[in-house]
């Protein structure tokens, strides 16, 4: 028997991005799974708000290896979030986003503008102007960025209604490398914050949700698990647990021990 969801996890606490509500706070990538069937099962197990997708040249080895992906997307019927992965210039990003809009018939775009191929660090100096151009073109932009407060604030200033700071470099699975900056970001910005990239364990996802982040986007941590389907479910549960913990208000840590069990009436106890 399935227990009903507690109130803080029902539709009243939906993730709202650009005015659109999502029941789940997990966004899941679709790459690097052992097989399309495992991907489909992982999506079913975790019920993500959106799944990320991409574009590559027709006829390339990548595209040929994904020849059945379009049919699988239609079958899964989960909202898609196209990315601009691999783009190194604003012009590449804009053309890719516009192509994605036509192919996937969506205005959502995960803005990736890579500044360094080794770390996959975003090009923070050109990210803001690129986001602004896309927003003026009607896109709902979810920018992949660092946890830098000023960068995130500038993205909000140009119209981003949510931002997606990394926890660690893409695919590393290291978990949050700079909790101080991430908590500061949460404290300073009021827009939805989704952690994108660098999570490796459900406990990482749970932690950032406990800090008040609004959702997580991850791929490799699920896809490269020995059992991606079970790991997808584990991440979904961790995101829910972290959200519930955030909403319920955690106790403040104490410096000294405090007995949980009442002292008064303890047998054999007497005041010395």
């Amino acid at each position, binding site marked *: 028997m399935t227990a009903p969801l507690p109130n803080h996890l029902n539709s009243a606490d939906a993730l709202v991005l650009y005015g659109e509500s999502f029941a789940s706070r997990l966004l899941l*990538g679709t*790459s690097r799974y052992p097989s399309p069937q495992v991907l489909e099962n992982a999506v079913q197990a975790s019920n993500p708000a959106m799944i990320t997708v*991409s*574009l590559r*040249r027709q006829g390339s080895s990548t*595209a040929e290896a994904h020849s059945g992906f379009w049919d699988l997307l239609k079958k899964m019927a989960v909202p898609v979030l196209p990315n601009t992965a691999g783009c190194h210039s604003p012009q590449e990003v804009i053309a890719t986003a516009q192509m994605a809009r036509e192919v996937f018939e969506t205005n959502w775009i995960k803005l990736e503008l890579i500044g360094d191929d080794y770390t996959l660090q975003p090009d923070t100096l050109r990210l803001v102007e690129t986001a602004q151009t896309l927003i003026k073109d009607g896109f709902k932009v979810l920018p992949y960025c660092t946890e830098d407060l000023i960068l995130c604030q500038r993205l909000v200033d140009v119209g981003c209604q949510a931002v997606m700071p990394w926890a660690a470099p893409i695919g590393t699975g290291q978990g949050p490398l700079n909790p101080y900056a991430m908590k500061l970001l949460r404290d300073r910005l009021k827009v939805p914050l989704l952690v994108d990239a660098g999570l490796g364990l459900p406990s990482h996802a749970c932690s950032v949700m406990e800090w008040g982040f609004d959702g997580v986007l991850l791929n490799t941590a699920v896809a490269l698990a020995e059992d991606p389907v079970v790991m997808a479910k584990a991440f979904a549960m961790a995101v829910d647990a972290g959200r519930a913990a955030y909403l319920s208000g955690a106790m403040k840590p104490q410096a000294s021990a405090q007995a949980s069990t009442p002292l008064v009436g303890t047998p054999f106890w007497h005041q010395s």
Partner: protein
Amino acid sequence: MRVIVNQVEYEVPNQSVISDVLSLIHAKQPYAVAVNMHFVPKTNHAKHPLNENDQIEVITPVTGG
């Protein structure tokens, strides 16, 4: 004239349009097209003239993170 489609050179007649190139490479739906890094909507494929040395990208959905 010479055009480059997904990094492969092709000789096409003068006054060719994008639709001609899509037929030439047997493009499979779904796809989208950019010429010289500018997106060209599908409504313009049959009337967008190509020029010598145009760089044409024909892309298709794949998995992504």
